[in-house]
């Protein structure tokens, strides 16, 4: 078997290379030749091709993502910012929290179980490589129509994959989203979020410093999974007859990941590690080039030392393999023995594959022959950057003009129509109970879960002594972003912010997972540009920085892109989790209020979507100053014990919120409709900047004063009441003098949809 070495590359400058098959453009290939002043070896070509891919290099999105730094609000809470594996936020008392969300969309469509499982695995390794103990996961998911045949294939597989991996790993799953829309039918979205915590002095970074320090690869052995395009190279270079089609979806082993977490945290806490990096996309290529690029600039690797699952792998394949459950650590020679003792204690394999040098080059040898000799920055950080053309789509005006006016979409008018609409809405796949899914996830493990689905935000206790905790929520209504990507993204931010405040936590930082269609489509690129601009402006206005994120392009079927889906995650801190505000009513007789203004806003609403399959008009107005005032009332109300329950108003409107609060508490309610309000608008509008709260009668005065001090409109809309259904020995929700719904009817409508489709 002949190996393409550096010296051969110098001697055979004209050998044709399959750069196009590996996804490189002709000018990108030319640039590699200029950087190296020769043609790349096949191993070098493989490394550049994966590291310069959209997924690793952010070449189409970089120019837009820059705004998150340029417009970042001033904060002293950010300990590590964008660019590292995950941002790190100071939450006080010496604790730091790191969190990040990533996409695993395409693998999950090809192989739902493994795709979703390894999505969880990858994000968890990002968190441990910062030195943090992972504490919880969440999964924002998007599927095609709930009753589409392919959804029946994809959804159960993805849910079992997330459960199968996360449950076995021992991380509670505390929230996320499950949303159905036609546009995701051929391209479901599987985003995975992980949150972890550490003491301030435990933060670790991905850098290879200290000449002579050793580079250790540990965890699972390297196999042929997840190699993707590199098999082209392997077959072209070596043996055109051999079957080179490797599975491009990785296979997860959560048990190994659990050992990897424990072993990694133990070596980190023992102070045995100088730098650390997880292996995900682009495998060893990514880990070695990023470690070297962030460190002293040089590294030498003996690639033949890598432990293999399959001895026939070529060096190119080893460099590119995306085998799961692997980590790379930089360890000083005096610590290596102690490091190995701990790794072995956890029955994990490890091998020294390289060392830090001062050469300024990343060099790789294969059985004594030099196969890679490159400046590491050119691989890891100085890839191509594109200013993709973008333009407002020519259909945007028509879409926005098609508003859901009463003339355009028939609205329910009388009590019986409103009642029927309510029951149909409660059963809509997007609004129905998601318990069939979330009951397959362990939400209890680790014993620190304070709030989990269906709460507005997941909440985790960080410090058992002081009660310090964090809350996190992810949100995005893709219909709003389709109608107006700038406003829609701010609405996603506002909802996530509001959810965190509703739980009683103070928002601190933002992460995102930007799922879009092809960046080569100017329409899509315009959506992306508007969404990032909206998010950066919104974060500046709310005073919370973006700490990191992920971009997923090419989410489309044929030339039809998905709804632009910038999932926004907001992290908040709560000083004492005992003071959290629950979603469920607490006491019979508590007074129910809605905070904020309810307007006739139905464009992009679930009502328009579910009842009329309509999407058009302008999304609800967003007022971030109002969101801040609302947040202030929710957080102060929680801290001072003024609120006994709170729930953000979003999809489905006020009536959805009332029913959820009632069903989860087991106590009914009597709802009144303000006389100046249209009944339909009051019940179903999706105006932003609102929350429903319950207040004990003796707290009303303080509550009114708190709202007044924050200039926040407040309207009394009912009372928690366990007696209204007394005659029929049941709990009921009574909507004004129009109609009464028993809990039996509400449960029937709200909880049967998903089991009927998927169980």
């Amino acid at each position, binding site marked *: 078997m002949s190996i393409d070495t550096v010296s051969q590359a110098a001697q055979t400058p004209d050998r044709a290379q399959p750069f196009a098959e590996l996804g490189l453009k002709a000018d990108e290939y030319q640039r590699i030749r200029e950087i190296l002043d020769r043609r790349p070896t096949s191993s070098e070509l493989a490394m550049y091709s994966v590291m310069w891919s959209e997924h690793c290099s952010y070449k189409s999105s970089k120019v837009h993502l820059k705004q998150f730094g340029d417009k970042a609000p001033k904060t002293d809470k950010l300990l590590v910012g964008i660019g590292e594996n995950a941002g790190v936020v100071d939450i006080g008392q010496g604790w730091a929290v790191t969190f990040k969300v990533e996409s695993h969309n395409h693998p999950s469509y090809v192989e739902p179980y493994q795709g979703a499982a390894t999505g969880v695995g990858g994000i968890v390794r990002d968190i441990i490589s910062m030195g943090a103990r992972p504490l919880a996961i969440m999964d924002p998911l998007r599927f095609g129509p709930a009753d589409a045949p392919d959804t029946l294939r994809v959804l159960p597989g993805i849910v*079992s994959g997330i*459960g*199968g991996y996360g*449950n*076995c*790993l*021992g991380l509670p799953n505390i929230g996320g989203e499950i949303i159905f829309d036609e546009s995701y039918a051929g391209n479901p979205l599987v985003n995975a979020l992980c949150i972890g915590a550490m003491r301030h002095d435990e933060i670790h970074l991905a850098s290879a410093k200290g000449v002579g320090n050793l580079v250790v690869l540990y965890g699972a052995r390297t196999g042929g999974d997840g190699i993707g395009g590199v098999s082209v190279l392997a077959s072209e270079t070596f043996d055109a007859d051999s079957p080179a089609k490797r599975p491009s979806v990785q296979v997860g*082993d*959560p*048990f*190994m990941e*659990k*050992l990897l977490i424990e072993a990694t945290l133990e070596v980190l806490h023992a102070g045995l590690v100088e730098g650390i990096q997880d292996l995900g996309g682009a495998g060893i290529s990514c880990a070695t080039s990023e470690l070297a690029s962030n460190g002293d600039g040089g590294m030498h690797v003996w690639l033949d030392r890598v432990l293999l699952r399959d001895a026939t792998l070529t060096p190119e394949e080893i460099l590119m393999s995306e085998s799961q459950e692997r980590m790379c650590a930089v360890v000083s020679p005096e610590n290596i023995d102690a490091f190995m003792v701990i790794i072995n*204690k*956890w*029955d994990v394999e490890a091998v020294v594959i390289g060392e830090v040098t001062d050469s300024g080059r990343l060099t790789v040898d294969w059985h004594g022959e030099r196969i890679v000799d490159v400046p590491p920055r050119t691989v890891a950080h100085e890839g191509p950057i594109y200013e993709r053309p973008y333009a407002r789509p020519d259909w945007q005006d028509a879409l926005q003009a098609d508003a859901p006016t009463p003339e355009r979409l028939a609205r329910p008018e009388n009590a019986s129509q409103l009642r029927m609409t309510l029951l149909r809405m409660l059963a809509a796949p997007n609004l129905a109970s998601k318990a069939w899914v*979330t*009951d*397959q*996830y*362990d*939400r*209890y*493990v*680790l*014993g*620190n*879960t*304070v709030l989990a689905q269906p709460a507005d935000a997941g909440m985790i*206790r960080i410090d*058992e002594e002081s009660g310090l905790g964090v809350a996190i929520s992810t949100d995005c209504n893709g219909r709003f972003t389709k109608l107006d990507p700038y406003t829609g993204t701010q609405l996603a931010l506002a909802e996530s912010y509001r959810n965190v405040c509703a739980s009683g936590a103070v928002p601190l930082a933002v992460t995102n997972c930007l799922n879009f269609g092809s960046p080569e489509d100017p329409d899509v690129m315009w959506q992306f540009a508007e969404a990032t601009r909206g998010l950066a402006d919104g974060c500046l206005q709310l005073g919370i920085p973006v700490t990191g994120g992920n971009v997923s392009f090419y989410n489309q079927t044929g030339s039809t892109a998905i709804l632009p889906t910038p999932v926004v995650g907001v992290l908040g801190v709560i000083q004492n*989790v*005992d003071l959290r505000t629950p979603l469920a009513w607490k006491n019979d007789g508590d007074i129910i209020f809605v905070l904020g203004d309810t307007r006739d806003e139905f464009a992009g609403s679930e009502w328009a979507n579910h009842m009329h399959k309509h999407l058009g008009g302008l999304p609800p107005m967003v007022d971030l100053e109002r969101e801040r005032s609302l947040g202030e009332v929710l957080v102060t109300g929680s801290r001072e014990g003024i609120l006994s329950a709170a729930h953000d108003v979003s999809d489905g409107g006020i009536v959805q919120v009332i029913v959820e609060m009632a069903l989860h508490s087991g106590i009914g309610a009597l709802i009144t409709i303000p006389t100046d309000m249209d009944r339909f608008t009051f019940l179903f509008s999706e105006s932003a900047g609102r929350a429903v709260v319950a207040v004990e009668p003796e707290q009303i005065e303080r509550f009114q004063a708190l709202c007044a001090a924050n200039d926040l409109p407040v309207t009394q809309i009912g009372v928690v009441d366990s007696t209204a259904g007394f005659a029929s020995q049941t709990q009921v929700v009574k909507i004004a003098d129009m109609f009464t719904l028993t809990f039996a009817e509400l449960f029937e409508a709200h909880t049967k949809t998903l089991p009927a489709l998927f*169980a």
Partner: protein
Amino acid sequence: MRIGVVTFPGSLDDRDAARAVRLAGGEAVALWHGDADLHKVDAVILPGGFSYGDYLRCGAISRFAPVMGEVVAAANGGLPVLGICNGFQILCESHLLPGALTRNEKLHFVCRDQKLRIEDNTSAWTSSYASGQEIIVPLKNGEGCFVADEKTLDELEGEGRVIARYLDVNPNGSLRDIAGIRNTRGNVVGLMPHPEHAVEQLTGPTTDGLGFFTSILTAMVNA
């Protein structure tokens, strides 16, 4: 009172079990699967999780851990042992308890707040409860369907060795709604639901689970 909590590779609820022991007033002692030494503990808990990834068969590999030789010998000598979820599976694989735990009837992992009835309060781990007391604790398993042959089931029932039964919903298809059993002597108990997740109002559905941990402390004080 020193209660050992064993960590196998892939144990997940070991920290939770230790927390429950502390909240009940005991001292939790970490035991390691590879260390064939019980460090003079007064009782042992085999916690929940996916030891060895549940590969081969739940509990089938952990059963051979060095520490298990000591646990089996001590249990046969009367040392109180509680196996929760994966720990229950390990106790069955170790033949300290009869029967086996198989894949849930509906094939899905299930996590829910489960109502149970304490059927027997004579064991070392259930004495704090009233016989017939109804409690709610989390249940979370993929392979929690208790099975045994008819003769064994009749024996368990006849000798009062079913310590807890599922009420309202049988979440995993367990025969005769069995959630937990004990050995003849009453020192070894296996339980599929997770009492260690119901020890604080803040994080659990109830604090009903504490009874398992206070039971053992009381049993030892009285011993």
